[in-house]
């Protein structure tokens, strides 16, 4: 019985660039979830996450080159594109990012976001400076190694380590102070 071989990300990327729709679909289905979650977690906005996910793959369709295997895994490459797109949008739309209110009441994603936005951890993450927030999301939520995160952010591994250290330190302070407030004051803010 022939063995089924799962194509690598690199194979799928190459197939996609040759116009193979099956390769594109497989690559998309493998990566849309992680990329959507990255953008959602770092921004708090499902609309921005949707845009970023689409734009990452549109960028892949437009470019004939761009991925260099010697610079890291496809995961780092895709997260790097998503990071740049999300960062540009977060900085441009500061204070105007829509949350889940645009979606209908029966949208499970909107429900999830509404519920989680009241969570102290997400509030704490979204309150971090963006360069710390990106590293905390990449390493602690997306599960990238220091090396993968460094490739996505185009910085040194040491920079990732120090940003993660400081980001978590700030997050810890925020969580501790929120938890020691009287209940009425500890209600998380819904706007940034």
């Amino acid at each position, binding site marked *: 019985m022939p063995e089924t071989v799962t194509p690598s990300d690199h194979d799928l990327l190459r197939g996609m660039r040759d116009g193979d729709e099956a390769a594109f679909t497989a690559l998309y289905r493998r990566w849309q979830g992680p990329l*959507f979650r990255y953008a959602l977690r770092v921004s708090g906005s499902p609309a921005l996450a*949707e845009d970023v996910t689409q734009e990452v793959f549109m*960028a892949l369709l437009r470019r004939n080159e761009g991925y260099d295997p010697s610079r890291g895994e496809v995961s780092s490459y895709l997260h790097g594109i998503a990071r740049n797109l999300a960062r540009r949008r977060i900085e441009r739309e500061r204070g*105007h*990012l829509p949350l889940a209110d645009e979606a209908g009441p029966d949208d499970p994603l909107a429900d999830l*976001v509404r519920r989680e936005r009241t969570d102290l*951890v997400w509030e704490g993450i979204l309150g971090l400076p963006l360069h710390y927030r990106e590293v905390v999301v990449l390493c602690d939520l997306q599960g990238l190694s*220091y090396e993968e995160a460094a490739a996505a952010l185009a910085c040194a591994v040491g920079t990732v380590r120090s940003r993660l250290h400081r980001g978590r330190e700030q997050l810890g302070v925020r969580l501790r102070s929120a938890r020691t407030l009287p209940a009425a004051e500890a209600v998380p803010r819904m706007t940034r």
Partner: protein
Amino acid sequence: MSCEDFEDDVVDLARGEELGPAERTEALAHAEACLRCAARLEDERAVTSGLRAFAARTAAAEAPARVEAALRRALRDPEGLDADGSAAVRPSRAGVLLLLAAAAAILAGIVVVPPRVGPLYDRAPAVLPAGSPTSAAVQEAAVGAGVGENSEFVSLSYGEDLRDLDSLQVVSVELPRTALGALGWPAADSAQTGSVKAEVIVGHDGVARAIRFVD
């Protein structure tokens, strides 16, 4: 191990990754002997625990199916892509909400289109190609909304056929020129002031589907 060395390792220790067995044993031994570092480790473990719980709760979030559909259409229709790799000029869904907030400033008029009647809906269905800013469906809907056949509306939705909607409204709005960049249009010169007028096609669900600037 000194407290300073412990501080260098405490994040890796709490995350349970990236630290070799020997370093881990040494760091744990230090925490057992040092109350301050033990408390520091507990704090980091609490952060790790909170982050992991949050990651698990949001692990099922995925892009809506319309994104894949739009991308596959774009793959089949490479004409809709920019050859130079530059970003397509497409207003963002997030930016549209900013636009609608600005619309509250000046609401000049509303035209309501009756649901699924008239020749607008009798024609063969047209598909909105992703990456193609204008489309037959948008223009037809614009005509149906009474804003003229020559309207250059830009689609704001991914591959949605406006003729599937029960009703449409055209809302005239005015917004600061500086807001154009946030909507995904080529960034306006920051020195430019004043406002621009636009018309937005809004579905019965209140979501904007297309826009055109009228000056």
